[in-house]
């Protein structure tokens, strides 16, 4: 069996699952955020594979966009986390429950 689209997509899905698991099990905001980056990368992989196997370059343009957006998002996100850390001296999610119910 040749390596085909489904193989790439499977890898991508597994990577996506890893990211999801990370969000669920980690309590450190930064690591959670890194896990989300994993998910974005999974999407990137899917795009590139799709692009390759359907002979459509648009997918690669999309990946380009995603990387840009991810960069922007990371910048904002990290700034936020840092700001919060300065205030609360913590980056752990269970400490961030001043608003609930």
């Amino acid at each position: 069996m040749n390596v085909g689209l489904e193989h790439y997509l499977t890898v991508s899905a597994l990577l996506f699952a890893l990211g999801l698991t990370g969000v669920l099990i980690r309590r450190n905001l930064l690591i959670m955020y890194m896990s989300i980056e994993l998910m974005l990368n999974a999407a990137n992989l899917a795009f590139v594979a799709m692009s390759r196997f359907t002979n459509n370059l648009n997918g690669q343009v999309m990946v380009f966009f995603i990387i840009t957006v991810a960069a922007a998002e990371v910048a904002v996100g990290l700034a936020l986390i840092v700001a919060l850390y300065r205030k609360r001296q913590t980056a752990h999610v269970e400490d961030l429950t001043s608003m609930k119910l």
Partner: protein
Amino acid sequence: MIENLSAWILFLPLIAAAVITLFTRRSPSVSAYISIAAIAISFLLTLGLFFRLGNETALTVPAIKWLSVGNLNVEIGFLVDRLSVLMLLVVTGVGLMIHVYSYGYMHGDKAFSRFFASLSLFTFSMLGIVFATNFFQMFIFWELVGLSSYLLIGYWFEKPSAADACKKAFLTNRIGDFGFLLGIIIIWSLLGSVQFSELQNAITQNKAALGALATVAGVLIFMGAMGKSAQFPLHVWLPDAMEGPTPVSALIHAATMVAAGVYMLVRVFFLYTATPAWPEALSFMEGVTALEIIAWIGGITSLLAALIAVQQNDIKRILAYSTLSQLGYMIMSVGLDGKTAAMYHLTTHAFFKALLFLGAGSVIHAMHHEQDIWQMGALRKRMPRTFWTFLFGTLALAGVWPLSGFYSKDEVFVAAIDGNPVLFGIAVLVALLTTFYMFRLFFVVFYAPEKSEGASHAHESPTVMTGPLIVLAIPTVIAGFFGINHYLSRGDANAHGEHHGFVDLLIGPFGHAPLAAIMGLAAVIFGFAAAYGLYYRAKQDPLPNMMRPVARSMRNRFYFDELYAALINLTHEALAKIATGIDRWIVGGALVKGVQGTTELFGRGLRLAQTGNLQTYAFIFVIGLAVLLFVFFRP
């Protein structure tokens, strides 16, 4: 034509009531004059109507179309025939006397105007029943009579006993009216009309028109009479109704209103000629007719009331039970197919019982509202006019020849002897008891030594009160000589043209039914003898010592009030408690509050998901997603 003035007979008292309520509340005398004038004019017009009727059976009077929807047509009509004219005479005649008497009796009462307004309202309602050409109209005025009775019994409403009594009277009547209305509804649904003439035609043409419901409908209609005429088992309200002013007791609870039941039964007697057709399942009821039930109820009531009367000490209550007993006679008579006899007795009874009540009122007035006969005594000398008129009343009630009561009671006996020997026996026993308790009362009040200060300082009442006594004493004595029964039955074709001489009338009873007449007189003699022996000079009641338990039961009215109280507690109060409980705890509580509470609880529960913890949020996000994915993309 004078019959076209029938509406005035009916509405004059109403107008009087309205005028008094609206304008003359603050001038009592004017109110009284207006009220008296209204009933006097009504009486005169009735007399005119009587003479206009002459030998005719009925007159046609244009009716007012009142309600007409679909096949429900109701008119306010004016039925003018012998039956109604006789009843009109009784109502307006006796009523006029009582109005006049009241002017004296009630003098100085602070709500004098209200009294006369209510009295006029009552007269209006009562006349409406008499004039009724259909069931619906009769029911309307039937209820209005109930209302006026309520108002008059509760006239001294600040007295708790009076307030309770009027409530009791109205409610007991309502139970009867329940049957009455349901009966009317059944008849309407079967025959499509409420008009007496149409119903009579329908039943005459087809005796089985009421089918399986004939007896049921008949008994239901009778329930109306049971309430108004205070028949067993709805008799309990009447004695309590004596809480009202004495003229009211005389007019409403002796002469007229309580007789309305009898009048109604006579009026709709054609219903009871229908043959019942019981359905297969109820074939064992075959042969049971409404009339039979009516007769027995009447008989039982008369006996029961007479027994209770023997051991009462309140002068008005004795008379009240006596009224019950006499009403029982009338009802029994109707049940035994003796409707003429019933009406006859009704008429004479109206006179002498009104007389007795007014006499009692006179006594009470003199005794400063003391009603216990064992506080009175030796009033014969101090109140001669009252004494004499009262004597006539007593004799008439006892049925002493040749007073009016003898003749009418004899007619009842005749009906019983023809119909049912057992009931005849009861009737004779009641006659005996009647004589006994009436003379017990009479002796204790007028002959026995005085037993209180009040009794020794009593004075004869003013003329405005004794006048009506004397006027009423006249028909009490002579009403038997007019052949009222013949006047009524002369309407029938077969009796037409028959003429009776005065002497024929005088001794007639001994001629055509000697057994009845003789038994009646014998009962009077025995009763009188017993009363004379026991009470002629009695200082206290010897009877309780002689027959303890029986007397106690009698004195306590055979415990009917207690029984009913228990019954109501067991049924309505219990159901009400259950319903309220359900309302509070189940419908209002478990359901409504439950739904609200559960909703809020769910809200509070759901809200717990909002822990504030980001990880939980992600968890919920993913779990929700997983569930949706699983449901919609499951392999």
